[in-house]
């Protein structure tokens, strides 16, 4: 169990993490969700003892990271920015980390195989693409076969196949009984990967609940609608108090009305409905919950 208690971190006068309290349990994937700049990476760095909290604490099975006997065998972390010297080969980078924790050399080749980097193992890391760097970071996290896996924005830079691979990896790590804690600012990705969510905004806890509850609790619901004559339906929607936006594929997203009202409206207008589906609205739920806590917002 990872336990954060009143965890607080300030950078000068800026409070990056503000009395954050949450738990991460083993056996499921826990998503750590928040807009950019909300303190996710700082929290991850504090779990791993790299940044020091100003007050509060965070422990792994009751222990500070500092006191772990074989850190990499207990916690594997992928840190946000690539934390790797570019002049070293992937294999020697992993080997030096392995040596720090008396992990045998064969395990280095094993994790390179797991992340699909065996063929470039002897290439210098500086020549790696963003996605390859990310895979190398994941290899480092798996090096000690740890019971706790922390991944900060793991899908950054991965191609669609890599993202799917990442998702499978997280789920299988969790199904083996490990703690899997992954941060992301991408709600859609979390909806597919995570079982449990810890949501923060401006360093404060906004929600800590199962993904399903998070979606259900949202007051905003949106529907994907496809009709025979979109133009006339849009004006009918607007006069009925709904809002709509057109999607690229010819469908539209409707909010402000429930499914029954949309269907009845189409019937009364005599417009054929080809599709009327509830959208996975984690994104909306997230936007709604964090709208007061986005640090940087573009003018609109």
């Amino acid at each position, binding site marked *: 169990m990872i336990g954060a208690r009143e965890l607080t971190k300030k950078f000068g006068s800026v409070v990056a993490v503000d009395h954050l309290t949450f738990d991460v349990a083993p056996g499921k994937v826990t998503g750590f969700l928040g807009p950019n700049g909300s303190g996710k990476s700082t929290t991850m760095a504090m779990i791993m003892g790299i940044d020091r909290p100003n007050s509060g604490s965070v422990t792994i099975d009751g222990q500070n990271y500092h006191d772990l*006997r074989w850190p990499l065998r207990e916690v594997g972390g992928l840190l946000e920015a690539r934390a790797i010297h570019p002049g070293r080969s992937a294999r020697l980078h992993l080997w030096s980390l392995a040596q*720090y924790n008396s992990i045998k050399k064969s395990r280095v080749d094993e994790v390179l195989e797991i992340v699909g980097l065996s063929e470039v193992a002897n290439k210098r890391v500086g020549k790696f693409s963003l996605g390859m760097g990310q895979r190398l970071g994941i290899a480092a996290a798996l090096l000690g076969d740890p019971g706790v896996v922390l991944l900060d924005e793991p899908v950054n830079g991965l191609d669609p196949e890599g993202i799917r691979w990442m998702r499978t990896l997280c789920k299988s790590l969790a199904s083996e009984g490990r703690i899997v804690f992954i941060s992301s600012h991408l709600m859609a990705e979390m909806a597919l990967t995570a079982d449990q969510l810890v949501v923060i905004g401006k360093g404060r806890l906004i929600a800590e609940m199962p993904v399903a509850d998070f979606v259900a609790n949202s007051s905003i619901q949106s529907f994907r609608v496809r009709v025979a004559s979109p133009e006339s339906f849009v004006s009918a929607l607007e006069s009925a108090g709904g809002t709509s936006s057109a999607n690229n594929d010819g469908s539209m997203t409707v909010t402000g009305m429930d499914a029954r009202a949309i269907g009845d409206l189409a019937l009364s207008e005599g417009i054929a409905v080809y599709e009327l589906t509830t959208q996975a609205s984690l994104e909306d739920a997230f936007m709604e919950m964090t709208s007061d806590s986005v640090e940087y917002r573009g003018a609109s």
Partner: protein
Amino acid sequence: MTISPPPVVFEMSAPSGRAGLRQAIRAEWTKFWSVRSTPWSLFALVVATIGIGVLSTHALHDQRFPTPDPIRRILVGFNLSQFAIGVLGVLFISAEYGTGQIRSTLAAMPRRPIVIGAKAIVMGGVGLVIGEILSFVTFFIGHAMLSGSASQVSFNSPGVVRVLIESGVYIALLGLIGLGIASILRNSAGSIATFAGALLILTILIAAMPTFIVNAVSRYLPLNIGSTILSIGPPPRLQGTPVFSSTVGLILLGVYALVLLSAGWVLMNRRDS
């Protein structure tokens, strides 16, 4: 790239005990040699120091009158190596901060004193071996070149072995001082500038001060300690100025390195990385 579902196993059992200095030294040893620039820098350092020694010795060979302290001329290349080894010491830790590698290192070994200690042992060890190789190899080449000339030197002359051994230690300590400076400043450019400043600029400035300052301070300067170490008699540059014996000088340099490295780990414990 096609990747099959990960065959993750959850079966590795941790050995007894705890990750410590022994593991850290092995890891830092791997890190030291696995950045391609390191072996190349050391190779260039050795070639340049010996090459400069050969040229300088060659100049002596043609002189009709004996030079009072020929070993100083043979080892003149150390004036270069003392800077090069310092830069290597700086980069051994500053490059980790510059690239973010330090975060991976601290994830593997969160106890900062062990990280700094292991780096110091590797850097000091490499510096010592390189330094001793440099001093003995350069000396024996010079020795062979000067045989039969007016400035002929013998390995058995008083002070020669002392100079050769201490010169190697001097190189090792300068590597540690570079490491210590960088463990405090963390930034490569700033640390290299500080190291060069402390060696060269400080020495030039102090030499231009009034006598009472020169007499009080100049024997504490690393470069002046180096000049005493690298010659048998008192170095001409420091004639008339009080100097420490080479042995006291080495102890002093060791104290500098220790103070800098200790400050480095105290700061490392306090700061985020």
